[in-house]
């Protein structure tokens, strides 16, 4: 698209953002009718609790078997696919905001995580990965002699 507005101007950027937004909306509209090759990105939080790091990922509508967690060389990868049921595919969509498809997210774990003690749980569409800190990294109080 040839732009009439100079790049760098405020209005130029605003229109640029708006165009991206429109593209995103139209891409989303294709949603359930063309699931192949589409990707989405589940929202993820990482919280620092005194003795551990807790990662939570929102994966509504997935089953435990749809999710894969890999740990290789300190890189934690969460992958999966949200599928839609074929019986519903045949019906009429009135409103469609849900996004389906594959996702993959990777995080480099900090040195202070004890990778042998990592645990994962999946409940009500939320994946929780608990990563204990190594003994050295845990907060401790130092006594004054």
């Amino acid at each position: 698209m040839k732009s009439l507005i100079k790049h760098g101007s405020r209005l130029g950027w605003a229109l640029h953002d708006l165009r991206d937004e429109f593209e995103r909306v139209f891409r989303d509209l294709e949603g359930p009718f063309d699931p192949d090759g589409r990707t989405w990105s589940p929202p993820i939080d990482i919280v620092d609790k005194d003795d551990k790091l807790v990662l939570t990922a929102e994966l509504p509508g997935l089953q435990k078997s749809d999710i894969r967690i890999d740990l290789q060389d300190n890189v934690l990868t969460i992958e999966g696919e949200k599928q839609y049921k074929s019986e519903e595919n045949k019906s009429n969509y009135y409103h469609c905001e849900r996004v389906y498809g594959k996702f993959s997210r990777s995080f480099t774990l900090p040195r202070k995580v004890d990778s042998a003690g990592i645990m994962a749980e999946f409940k009500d569409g939320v994946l929780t990965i608990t990563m204990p800190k190594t003994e050295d990294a845990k907060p401790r109080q130092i006594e004054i002699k």
Partner: protein
Amino acid sequence: MNAISARKTDMIFIPPTEIIESRDGYTITMEIPGLDKADIRIWSENNKLMVTAEKKIDTEGRLYAERIGGKFARWFVLPEDCEAAKVEAEYVDGVIRIVIPKSEKSKAKTITIK
């Protein structure tokens, strides 16, 4: 630019919703992971259906923050062929699923040729 960027940061939680019509009725699905079933309220009045809930997330000490929590309310106007009294709902794997049956007389029928 400001208006659009601001929307990205001060995001309000709006659960992604789908409405599908089938032969027997309508199905509304809403993605709201991590809810307590007791915090979900669904009620219908005349031809309106309202869903409210609160998504609570732990925001203290976040190193990485993408999840959005908060209260939300969404309401739907039901078509005339619905039986609002027979609405059923369940919450499975972070998805609320509301099934609204069509009234008997409005259901699609197959007519046999005599």
